[in-house]
């Protein structure tokens, strides 16, 4: 029981923080970052627990599984919780200085901690209905955070974001209803065991995939993402692009490889992969054409999510060790993107503050004025292009490797084209850092904001590029794991 507490704490700490920050408004910022630090600590503890005491299953309030709220922590869930908690921690440190008025702090922190709660609860949810609740919580808090931008564009984006989120959730809820009607349970493990191949199962799978594809902005359902992610305040944009879409992706992985494993076919996986490929090409191209930095970052997220889906058709054909490696590489790619993209958005926030705008063509002076911020963008760019050392490089390596092993060489072409486009959009930005301005006196100009961004960027590049070997052993503790 002592170990199981870690599962509870990673959810209840941020929730507690959110409540305290609501009540005790003048100290919202302090409560916020303290709670983020503690949550990150608990997330490390959780991973340790899963490593040493195995998969944790927990029914809250003593209700039997199937009735109460059940939590389920295996290697994959623990890794995602850790990712989310670390990114949230980085953004929290940044947000302390980012918001200037007390009013902004009071609005931001409760919602922010609620977002963190929803993310962790989603990763640890043991039954499909809990997933629905956490998805809604996530959607509502994310949309409210987007609206903090307070400009008309931000409000419009927030509203669209909310509607799209609700639509996705409704599709998902309908799928749950069908599953419950057929199997009388909502527990993921129990459904996975009982699932049969029939039209009802197919309908449920397709509804869920459609709902989650909408939420993770998979091409061609990505239309809502660029405005929402580019109009929010910097730490919010960072979390939306790095984590919230990743949550939907995580659910797709869980459902695809565990719950619906008997139903999924290589054909369907290839359809998903093809959508992913189009997302890579279209997203990268749009990022290249984007005139604003935050828009560039948002389009690049569309592309990066495309890569993640491209792993699916290859995972369907590979077997044994090679499949485990590829699965780990996919998770690594997701982690790398989470850290890199949050760093990029935080850096963009600093540029935006100093320049007063984020039009790429006119950023030359500001990038030269902020060398460390530019360095963060460069590191994040390395991880987005997939250059060594970065988690994305390893992810792409295994993707290429799997494509050659299975003879599906067309993914190689997509990957090459996507990487070239990514190089182009990253260096279109970095080229501006060289100019005739005199060198600045100090490398740190906005240290309190630059250091968290730098930490995230270093994590995406050197951290995950050279030190990610343990990830595969962590994921070995992935539970029900239909073949994982």
């Amino acid at each position, binding site marked *: 029981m002592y170990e199981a507490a870690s599962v509870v704490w990673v959810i209840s700490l941020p929730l507690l923080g959110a409540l305290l920050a609501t009540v005790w408004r003048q100290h919202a910022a302090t409560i916020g970052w303290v709670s983020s630090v503690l949550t990150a600590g608990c997330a490390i503890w959780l991973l340790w627990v899963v490593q040493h005491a195995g998969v944790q299953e927990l029914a809250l309030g003593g209700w039997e599984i199937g009735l109460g709220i059940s939590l389920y922590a295996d290697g994959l869930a623990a890794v995602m919780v850790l990712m989310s908690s670390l990114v949230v921690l980085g953004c929290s440190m940044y947000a302390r200085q980012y918001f200037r008025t007390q009013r902004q702090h009071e609005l931001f922190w409760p919602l922010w901690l609620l977002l963190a709660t929803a993310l962790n609860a989603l990763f640890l949810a043991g039954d499909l209905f809990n997933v629905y609740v956490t998805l809604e919580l996530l959607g509502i808090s994310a949309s409210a955070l987007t609206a903090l931008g307070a400009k008309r564009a931000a409000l419009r984006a927030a509203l669209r974001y909310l509607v799209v989120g609700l639509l996705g959730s409704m599709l998902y809820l309908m799928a749950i209803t069908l599953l419950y009607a057929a199997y009388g349970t909502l527990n993921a493990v129990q459904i996975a065991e009982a699932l049969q191949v029939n039209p009802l199962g197919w309908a449920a799978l397709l509804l869920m995939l459609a709902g989650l594809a909408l939420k993770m902005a998979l091409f061609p359902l990505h239309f809502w993402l660029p405005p929402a992610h580019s109009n929010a305040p910097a730490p919010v944009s960072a979390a939306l692009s790095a984590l919230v879409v990743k949550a939907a992706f995580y659910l797709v992985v869980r459902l695809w490889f565990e719950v619906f494993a008997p139903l999924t076919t290589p054909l369907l996986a290839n359809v998903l992969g093809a959508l992913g490929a189009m997302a890579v090409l279209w997203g990268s191209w749009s990022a290249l054409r984007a005139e604003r930095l935050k828009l560039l970052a948002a389009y690049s997220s569309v592309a990066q999510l495309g890569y993640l889906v491209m792993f699916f058709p290859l995972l369907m054909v590979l077997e044994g*060790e090679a499949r*485990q*490696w590829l699965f*780990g*590489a996919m998770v*690594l790619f997701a982690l790398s993107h989470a850290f890199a993209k949050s760093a990029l958005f935080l850096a963009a926030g600093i540029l935006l503050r100093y320049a007063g705008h984020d039009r790429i063509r006119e950023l030359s002076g500001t990038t030269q004025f902020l*060398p460390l911020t530019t*360095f963060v963008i460069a590191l994040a760019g*390395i991880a987005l292009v997939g*250059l*060594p*050392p970065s988690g994305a*490089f*390893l992810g792409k*390596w*295994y993707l*290429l*490797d799997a494509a*050659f*092993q299975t003879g599906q060489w067309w993914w*190689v072409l997509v990957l*090459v084209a996507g*990487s*070239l486009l990514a*190089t182009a959009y990253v*260096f279109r930005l970095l*080229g501006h850092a*060289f*100019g*005739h301005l*005199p*060198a*600045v*006196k*100090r*490398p740190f100009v906005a240290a309190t904001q630059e250091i968290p961004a730098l930490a995230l960027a270093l994590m995406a590049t050197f951290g995950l*590029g*050279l*030190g*990610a*070997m343990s990830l*595969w052993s962590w994921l070995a503790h992935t539970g029900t794991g239909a073949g994982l």
Partner: protein
Amino acid sequence: MNELLNVLTDALGENLPLWIVLSSFSVGLVIFFVQEGSHRLRTTLNLLAAVVKLLLVGVLIWGVYHGQVYEVRWVIAPNLELLLHADALSMLFVTLSALLWLVTTVYAIGYLEHSPHRSRFFGFFSLCVSATVGLALAGNLVTFVMFYEFLTLATYPLVAHKGSHEARKAARLYLAYTFTGGLLLLVAVVWLKSIAGPLTFVQGGILDSLPAETHSALRWIFLLMIVGLGVKAALVPLHGWLPKSMVAPAPVSALLHAVAVVKAGAFGIVRVVYDVYGVEFAAFLGVLVPLGVVAAFTIVYGSTLALFQDSLKKRLAYSTVSQVSYIILGTAILGPLATVGGIVHLVHQGIMKITLFFAAGNYAETLGIHRVSQMNGVGKRMPLTTLAFTLGALGMIGIPPMAGFISKWYLGLGALEAGVLLWVMPVLIASSLLNAAYFLPILYRAWFLPADPWPDEHIKAQRWETHGMLLWPPVITASLALLAGLLASAPFSPLEWAQLITAREYK
């Protein structure tokens, strides 16, 4: 002395290659944070790192000579490991890099005396050398690819350094070429790895036991790799970036042309042919002849274009295009003597070309001379620099006893041995004539024509013809180029090493 070296060898242990890479990498990171005005601190750090690296390389040579095995392994993902090791070929390249880095650092400190963004410059400069040394010490293709990409990243800011519109454009072009090349190399390596497993460099190659049905794939992979590496080695028609990136400051050009970028490509081709495919297996696959033809074409093409350049740096750039392909030509001819010629030219071309670039930089920095047509009579005003330039140029033409003669001699012998004299000899002769045609007029102008007024003299002749930190580096490298030719048969000479490497390849 022996005692001391033994103690050092023991203390540094097996991880020595890692320390060699990190010695410049860590200092590079520190330099980024050095304040722009702290000239002395930055200079100290720079020189300290360069000297320490050279010493570490010395210890490495000593250790390898005494049978110590150096291997650093780091598993970064399942079935994927970084491996740094020291074999004869890596020693050759690592020594060259460490030595020329020290000289270039001194030169760069003098050259950039009053220019802005020196901390940024020297930071990336150090990273660039770390990447080169990492390439040299890479023990498998995975590690090689990672450092190859890292090199691109570290050199991009150096090319863009001046920040002018032209510099940024050149840097963009450089990136477009090298990243495309890097990506193709990556694809090829992953593909090869999926066929052949771990790609550790082994002399004599690792692929000859693969079944015959993989051979056509192996040919495609070879093609991809040569294209990927050929971009940096400036093989025609992949050389477009090189003349354009001449906008970079002179020390960068010197480093790019002599050790870092161009040489990384050539070194990679040598590695792939000798230590991955194995030269005999590559010949069996029939991939060496096309490579040789491309190299031969590049040699003649580069020399021909050099003839028409009035800009001194551009003329040198096209000369590089041509000269680097001697290495590749030597690699493409099957037979030990040609191999010796190719490998030894890796070193010889480096020291000769860096001398020429230093000298060109001195002319520009001291007298504002950028064009060949402005060089009349410069020999009297700057005798030592011009002497160094002369030695480098004569070496490039291949006049004994300069180092370049040794390379060409072995290449010629190799062609004879392999029975391809018929097409290699005309290439060598044509190229040497062209070399003479574009270098000798410069020497004639410099020494024998009366001086015109200098375009923009900013350093007055005092005790020496120019600033000391600019003067001594070319003098030193020119002496090295002379010594490498004169003492070619002495122990530890580049030729000796090249023969050792070759002997192991053809055992």
